């Protein structure tokens, strides 16, 4: 008797002729994720991935936890593998079901008889197991419409599986099925959430961070690397680019109108980001902007920022309130890191009264007062790179 995990695919099931492509990417992602937890066997059937641990010592809690971070899985069930006999289904499963059944009041039993050779028919399996459960857990009653817990029995080729605990998976599409995108990662709350949201839709994320030494500290950069590590749990490995930005900021301060400082800075960040995208084969930019949150995120400001972009800029947080973003940040575990109190480059030189309704004409005129091109090239050349590995925690703060 051992425990296995069933991963139920979500919308991939609807994907028509491309389904197998999506599924094989997902299986590859799962394999990669579980590699360091031990040896597993995988079996794919009917939009479900069966994960069989091959080693007694594998900690199934850890496996569940890892699988909960894999996009493309909507539901996860732990199931007990028992011998394919009614005796085993009835008698070997009671202790296992205790965890799921002790705290609830109602249940029902569902049976799937994939192997039609099995002598007992589904309704009979349900009735017999239901009766046994009632006998063993006298506090329970049966409710076939809205049970607190559904106990499922699957009779497959070699074994029978009994499960009762279902947990939500991460949902979304498998990473890598929607192309590659470059996330502009600051140290704030929003940008990690934006990266997570796009990764959830299957985008492979790279990240770019702008730093302004000596005004921003090593800690500020480490904080962002830590954020990248935290979202990498969901997003998979992240190529992390860090671009020195101090000289450009000083040049903007010295040469451009103060009220347009932030907008011009963002336009230059976009420019640098898309040039790195070209090098890295990314086809979109991703930012954490939310409509109207700050002066640089008003409609007018976004129009001016976007005018500097040749590629699509995805802003998945655009329609979210701060509180909603915070909720997601807490759920994915980035919030506590995001609120560490270190300055980032966006807050180094801020205008007293930034323009909330800039016109593109003014911005372009303001920016043209200085030739930023050599500085942009230099910044890209001086960028540093590290690969943030999924599941590794190496950044010490």
């Amino acid at each position, binding site marked *: 008797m051992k425990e296995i995990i069933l991963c139920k695919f979500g919308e991939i099931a609807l994907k028509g002729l491309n389904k197998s492509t999506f599924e094989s990417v997902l299986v590859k992602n799962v394999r990669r994720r579980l590699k360091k937890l031990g040896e597993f066997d995988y079996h794919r059937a009917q939009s479900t991935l069966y994960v069989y641990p091959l080693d007694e010592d594998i900690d199934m809690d850890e496996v569940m936890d890892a699988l909960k971070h894999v996009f493309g899985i909507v539901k996860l069930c732990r199931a007990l593998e028992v011998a394919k006999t009614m005796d085993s289904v009835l008698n070997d499963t009671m202790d296992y079901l205790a965890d799921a059944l002790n705290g609830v009041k109602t249940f029902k039993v569902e049976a799937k008889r994939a192997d039609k050779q099995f002598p007992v028919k589904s309704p009979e399996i349900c009735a017999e197991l239901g009766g046994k459960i009632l006998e063993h857990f006298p506090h329970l009653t049966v409710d076939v419409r809205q049970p607190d817990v559904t106990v499922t029995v699957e009779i497959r080729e070699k074994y029978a599986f009994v499960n009762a605990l279902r947990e939500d998976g991460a949902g979304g599409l498998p990473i890598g099925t929607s192309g590659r995108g470059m996330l502009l990662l600051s140290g704030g709350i929003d940008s990690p959430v934006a990266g997570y949201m796009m990764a959830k839709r299957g985008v492979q994320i790279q990240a770019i961070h702008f730093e302004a030494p000596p005004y921003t*500290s*090593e*800690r500020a950069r480490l904080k962002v690397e830590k954020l990248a590590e935290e979202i990498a749990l969901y997003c998979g490995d992240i190529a992390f680019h860090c671009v020195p930005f101090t000289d450009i900021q000083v040049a903007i301060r010295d040469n451009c109108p103060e009220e347009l400082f932030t907008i011009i800075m963002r336009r230059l960040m976009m420019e640098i980001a898309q040039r790195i995208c070209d090098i890295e084969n990314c086809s979109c930019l991703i930012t954490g902007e939310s409509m109207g949150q700050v002066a640089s995120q008003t409609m007018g400001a976004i129009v001016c920022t976007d005018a500097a972009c040749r590629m699509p800029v995805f802003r998945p947080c655009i329609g979210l309130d701060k509180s909603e973003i915070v909720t997601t940040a807490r759920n994915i575990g980035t919030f506590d890191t995001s609120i560490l109190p270190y300055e980032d480059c966006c807050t180094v030189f801020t205008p007293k009264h930034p323009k909330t309704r800039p016109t593109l004409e003014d911005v372009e005129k303001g920016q043209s007062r200085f030739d930023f091109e050599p500085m942009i090239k230099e910044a890209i050349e001086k960028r540093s790179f590290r690969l943030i590995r999924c599941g590794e925690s190496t950044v010490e703060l």
Partner: protein
Amino acid sequence: MIYLDNAATTKPLPSAVDAAVNAMTEEHFGNPSSLHKLGLTASQTVSVARKTIASALGCTAEEIFFTSGATEADNTAVFGAAMSVGKRKKRIVTTSVEHPAVAEPCRQLSQRGFEVVNVSPRDGAFQVEDIVAAVNEDTCLVSCMLVNNEVGAVLPVAEAFLKIKRMYPDTLTHCDAVQAFMKLPVLSKKLNADMISLSGHKVHAPKGIGALYIKKGVHIPSLMFGGGQERGFRSGTESVPLMAAFGAAVSELSENMDKRYVHVKALSDLLKDRVNAAEGLVYNSPENGSPYVNSIAAEGLRSEVLLHFLEQQGIYVSSGSACSKGKKSSIPAQFGAPERLTDFTLRISFSSDNTEADIDELMRALKEAQHTLLKVK
């Protein structure tokens, strides 16, 4: 010197001493909360130590909170449970053999309206059913040590906590694992504990440092307020040198826990054989206990007199537990040692530094003591 009092405290490892000294010198003395580089270095030192301890315990770094020692960890666990779940549930279940760091907070709470139930061993051993049966719907906390500090008995914590958690998921479980950590395999998950107390100086780190594991998702209110260190749970500037030393010691000990166990087990078996073969000596620790802690008795030789006699010969042991400072302990008797031997109990506690020659020397000295002291009487 032959040091056989490792359950009282252990000699700090050179690597632990180095780590502590390093954290106090050169550019490593910073305050982890400082924003500058010195602060970062200090903060990273703490972070590495936390991770080391977490991985030894099989949990995440976020689940480890440093304290001033196991007493603070135990107090925080007991009072914390009383202040959270204890608002609604007024029963605390513990054992009759706990260390005072758990027993005393429980006694304090019994004076504040909590009903404290002390489960005792039956026929010299704790039964899972007895612990589970003492817990009811109204129980806020079950606190049970893993290895008894006086006789080395291993309590069935994992099984008891598993059953309790299945029946009463809201009831908090706490384990004082001070005498087990880095000696026997202690894994947070396998123990089914919501909280686990650890001590630095029992694992070859300096005194003044300990840790409390709090399972993710379990909310325990803070008892110490201030600058918000330890993620707001335990304010007070971090003792970076002690944390670094704790981490370094655990890191070194993690490498050879099995090997050390085998060595100490052989010593314990040898001691048992030699003691039982000698006239007037009795080996009192229960079967299947931790080999690190051994309780023996020399009939007719009062503990303290014998302790000082051995001390003269350069052998350091303890009468009962060092924390009870000479008070008579009922604990060996609870685990089945004959009552008449209570006054004559000695605790021999090993570390992996001890050798068979140490036991030879102890046996020789004990024989001499019998010869000298009993004749004098």
